[in-house]
């Protein structure tokens, strides 16, 4: 996993999200260790990783299987969490980001960028 590939993934997501992107963090899925990004603190990746695991457990106990993303709205923004087998990422978008656009456009782009970086 080359650092240049991670930087290129961050740059690709920055261009894709445009002005809506406020912060981004990419961490390793196994250890929740932050590898690249900007605008977020080192605590963001591990905490969102833990939140994702809690959701995965709740979904499994409820009879469902968690997909690789979840989106939650926060005060003044939207947080997108995408979990792939090797890398995971969280994007903080502004509040004017449409959730439909996030689901249909941003999340597939994050998937592609993470898979390319981990290849």
């Amino acid at each position, binding site marked *: 996993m080359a650092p240049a590939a991670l930087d290129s993934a961050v740059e690709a997501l920055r261009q894709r999200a445009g002005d809506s992107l406020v912060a981004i963090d990419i961490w390793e899925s196994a250890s929740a260790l932050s590898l690249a990004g900007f605008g977020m603190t080192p605590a963001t990746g591990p905490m969102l990783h833990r939140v994702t695991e809690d959701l995965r457990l709740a*979904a499994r106990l409820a009879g469902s299987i968690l997909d690789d993303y979840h989106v939650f709205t926060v*005060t003044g923004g939207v947080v997108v969490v995408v979990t792939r087998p090797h890398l995971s990422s969280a994007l903080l978008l502004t509040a004017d980001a449409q*959730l439909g656009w996030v689901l249909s456009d941003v999340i597939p782009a994050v998937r592609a960028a993470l898979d390319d970086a981990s290849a």
Partner: protein
Amino acid sequence: MALFRDRRAFPRWSFIDSSALARPRHAKDENSPESVPTPDEPMVEEAPELEPTIEAATPPEPATAPLIHAVPDPEPVRAVAEVAPVSWIEERRAWFAAGDWPTEASKDAVQLAGTHPDRPYIPPVHAGLPADGPAEVRARHGRGFASLTRRHRRKRHAHEQVQVQRRTDIDIAALEAALDSAASTVGDGLVDVVVWHATTGLALASRGQVSPEHASLWHGATREVRAALPHADLPDAASYHLVGLADGRLAVLLHTNRDLGACITVDLDLVAVEALLTTAVPQLNDALAATSREY
């Protein structure tokens, strides 16, 4: 009446009616009439008896002067009414029945009590007793009248918050109607929807195939997410949480208010996400918020 120091417990002074105490067997009542000589009685001279002599040679001692008992002036016998104990309560009752006690301070007394000799003293207007009962005042202020004075106010710690018990009324009929409206809006793409109590996680109403633990699991996950966000250096969570599920399903977790939470699961193949998030979910959120009322 006698004043004596009570040694039974805490040092104090007590009054007892000494006339009611037991008298020694041979003691004579000094107040009894037979013990007081009348002024007509003459003084009696008593000659002392000589002691028997042992030796005849010893001259007898000269006879001492006869003792003269002076007859004291007669003391007036105390009246029975004075000796009888006076009931303090009866005395006050009699005073109250007479009705001659002062009910309010006179103007002269108020002026004399003033601090300035020339300036007329204007007494402050007394606000009177509170119109609300002590229970209501205590419920409103916490400690009743004592909280009105700074001296009795309890010092609270820096981050201490007063726990106020909230009481809410959730209209279950309106809740069912809201779910019916959401189901009709979403249409065939609705998989299930469940509403739970945000404090306990208890499922209140549902549509679709929902297991009993479904609501509590999503409720617990929602709480975990909201609790973790401050530690992730992110802002507080807002209303919606979209969780992507397998088989093309999307779970929308709603944090309606402090009382209600909900989860609506849809099939993304049958539902347009944009319409769902702009129409159906806000309507459901508003309808759920209208069902709980605080009283």
